[in-house]
């Protein structure tokens, strides 16, 4: 049974969701491969043969007569930016949480995980315009601000991602880092790819989570339906879903294929995230990316 973050959110807000998701995820992983030996003390653990002798805490040995090894948190200078699309189209919800809610869970969990990793995390929420921007910080208090900002944002407005991304790549993200994009990418694809190329040009690592609802992928509608645009209230289409399903699916898959291939050519990690999938998947993707040598 999949864990449903929306249920948890009723009790403890996004913070609770993020912590539960991340700690559950880390418990599953059990041993963090990223725990290192650095300057900042993290914890003691029992000595096992093979551990370096220089890391044995002799002071503790003196007190307890047992060998303990001192572990230190690895220091990092990674700056990660979470770019969250809050345009109207992200508000779509079928039988699952809306795409924006899903993006919130993913973003909060990632932020929690990143800060846990001592990575600096920044947050940009935008539609056509920049709506919220929190610069990257690595302290734990920053998590609270991030999550509060996420919680206080409602999706709306039109989608024109490319110009803003150009602006971000050109002016905001000066220092090289990781850009995690959570968007449905419903924009002009050529301009979108060009903007992504701009990020890569600035040598950012880019993970693109393509957030989609299952209904958008499968188009399961059967009755005559009036589709009302979430972005422009006057934009309405009355169609027989049966009659256009084939063409819709063709066009949709073509869009996704081009986006995926375009991202691949630019060495951007493209991941289609469906709102009925567990959020933890995003965490795994992030960690595997983080583990990869840069």
């Amino acid at each position, binding site marked *: 049974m999949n864990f449903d973050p929306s249920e948890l959110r009723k009790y403890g807000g996004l913070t609770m969701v993020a912590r539960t998701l991340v700690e559950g995820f880390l418990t599953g992983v059990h041993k963090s491969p990223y725990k290192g030996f650095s300057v900042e003390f993290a914890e003691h653990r029992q000595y096992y043969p093979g551990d370096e002798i220089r890391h044995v805490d002799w002071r503790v040995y003196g007190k307890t007569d047992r060998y303990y090894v001192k572990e230190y948190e690895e220091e990092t200078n990674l700056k990660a930016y979470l770019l969250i699309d809050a345009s109207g189209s992200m508000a779509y919800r079928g039988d699952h949480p809306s795409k924006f809610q899903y993006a919130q869970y993913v973003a909060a969990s990632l932020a929690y995980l990143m800060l846990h990793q001592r990575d600096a995390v920044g947050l940009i929420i935008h539609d056509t315009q920049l709506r919220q921007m929190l610069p990257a910080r690595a302290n734990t208090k920053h998590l609270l601000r991030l999550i509060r900002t996420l919680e206080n944002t409602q999706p709306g407005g039109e989608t024109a991602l490319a110009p803003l991304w150009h602006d971000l790549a050109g002016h905001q993200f000066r220092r090289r880092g990781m850009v995690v994009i959570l968007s*449905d990418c*419903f924009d002009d694809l050529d301009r979108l790819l060009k903007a992504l190329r701009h990020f890569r040009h600035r040598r950012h690592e880019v993970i693109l989570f393509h957030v989609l609802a299952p209904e958008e992928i499968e188009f399961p*509608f059967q009755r*005559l339906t009036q589709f*009302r*645009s979430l972005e422009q209230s006057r934009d309405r*289409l009355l169609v027989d879903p049966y009659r*256009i399903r084939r063409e819709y699916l063709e066009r949709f898959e073509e869009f996704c294929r081009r986006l995926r291939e375009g991202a691949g050519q630019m060495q951007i990690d493209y991941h289609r995230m469906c709102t009925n999938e567990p959020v933890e998947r995003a965490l795994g993707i992030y960690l595997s990316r983080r583990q990869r040598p840069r």
Partner: protein
Amino acid sequence: MPLGFLHAAMLFGLITVLIPPIIHFLSRRRYQVVDWGAMQFLRLSDRRRQRVAFEDWLLMLLRMALLAVIVLLLAAPFISHSALARWSGRGPRDVVILIDGSYSMGFRRDDQSAHDRALNQVRRLVQELRPGDGVAILQAKRHIVPIVPSLSTDLSKALTALEAIPAPSGSVDWPHAIQTAADILAQGQRAERDIIILSDGQRYSWADDSTLLRWELLAPRFSQQATSPRIWYANVDADRPADVTNDSLQPIRTNRPVAAVNREVTFRATVTRHGGKGDRAARQIRVKVDGRPAGEIALPALGDDREQIPISFTHRFATPGSHLVTLTLDDDPLPGDNQQHFAIEVVRALPVLLVDGDERPNPPTRGSDFLRDALAPRRDPNPALLVRVIPITAFDESYLNRDLSDEPGTVPRVVVLCNVAQLSAHQQEAIERYLAERSGVFVTCGSRTDAAFFNDQMFRNAQGWLPARLVETAGDEDDLPRASRPVPASFFHPAVEIFRDVGIGGLADALFPKYWRLSITGTNSSVPIAMLTGGDPFLVEKPYQSGRVILSAVPLDGSWRSNLTELPAFVPLVHEVIFYLAGGRAGERNLSPGQPLRFQPLHDSPWGELRLRRPDGIESVLPVENWPFVYDDTHEPGVYIVFDRRDNPTYFVVPTDSRESQLAPMSDEDRSKVAKWLPQIRYVTDIQDLVAGLMERTHNVELWLPALLLACALVFAEVAFTRRLAQRRAV
């Protein structure tokens, strides 16, 4: 090339073609709303959108066309054109054969009747029909006797059914028969339709004035039909001589429709001699009463053509009850008009209620004593009438519904209002209801009569039951020399016709020094049946509802110094008037064709069953749920006998229409008159011509096969198209 439809009314079904667009537009109004993000993928290309719209419209048009073709198929379309006959061949057809069932078809010549000839020709016609042809066979009389009632393709069954056809009797209603045949054809499925009439070419009932008028009324119905059937008139007895010698017995009449036991009743009839020149042999008429011989009447040998020979005979009935009088003429070539029947009711004594205007309960003498003594003399041990006298004050409705004596069946048949002044409202209502039951009322006016009341309440400006308005009293009872007298020349009415012969002591000797002047101005149905010398009516009759009323201008009670009560004519006069009034109910026994037969048992009888014998001899036991028993299938002329629980017969007679004896054939002018209203009629005398006509190549080509193929093609196209769309959706 005109297009027609066998069932044009089905075309109203074309409205169903609106169902697909209505469903389409209604479904467009019922849709779900989804707030959607990926709008850019929903926007179809123009070409695709046009294609979707085109497919939608095409599917809708396919369905509309399918419904339209199914409706057209049900309406049975055909096209008719003479050019089509070249390649169409002789198509299947529906044929209704009408066999003349009137008694003129019983005319025998060369040991074979026209009816027999008609049956032979019907057999041949049916054998000439092809498998798939529909045939119905009807015998045409005043009503329709179904032989094969609806179109059947089982020709052998039709031939078998022909064996059970009834013998010809009565007359025939041709317009009704042809309308019935056209109605049967309208139920059929064939564009080729024929009505074949097998008759004897008689003018009467085909081209007489009354029938021509009915053809005129029928013609518009035929012209409205898309496929007016061809009508063939085949004269099966074309060689019959134009001037056939035949004697015809006319219906029996009598002056006493209701008779008393052992009283003489006179019956009258007429023999009409049709055709033939020169002398005729003397003939005999046998009289039977209740099936037993009761005498013979010799018909003189006369040489005149078309002579009406009146005959009369008298009879005394020994027992009360229903009796049947039958006259039978010697056999001749046309047996159908050689017999007449008459049903008469005989009572032990005719019950009469005298209502005297004298309000005293027990006076020593009453004015109505004269009438009472005339109707039922005290010295007569077996009077013809049973009379009861009551004062006007005692009269109420119960007297009209109960027996006057201990013997059952003595409910008063006639009520006499003798010189009454007024009637109460209840009494008037009772009289009105009494008249509605075919009873009779005799009103005498005298010194007590309140003219204003009579005029206001009983005459009611000719709307009431009183036959005439009372103007004033005329004359002076002391002025005998100037007294008025009845005028015998005015006695044409059955009730007074025996007084036409002026003799000593006859009605013409009556003196009326004083009388009520009666006026029938403004009335339509009142008839003076005897007049006075001054020009005023003596007796006035009015039929009211089902009963009869006679009003007398004098009191008939010896007052006003009239000598009428002293004359020998007085007793016969009141007897004739009373029996005439009682005869209103005789119409219940001698019926018109189709008039319902009503039977009320004399004794109280529980409901259950009774036996009825029809003129054709068939007896049936019929359930009775309440009295009177009503039987309405009396189209067949002849004697109907109802047997009660004690097996006592009650006779009812439907007389034969003697006009059917007019065997004169129709002329070319008659044919053209009928053809004016039935232009599609063709006369043939040789059955071979008729067979050849039926074999003609058809001009009407039915389109059911192309329509069916088109419907199948449309069904296939609709299914294939829908399937294709469904497959595309399933991706």
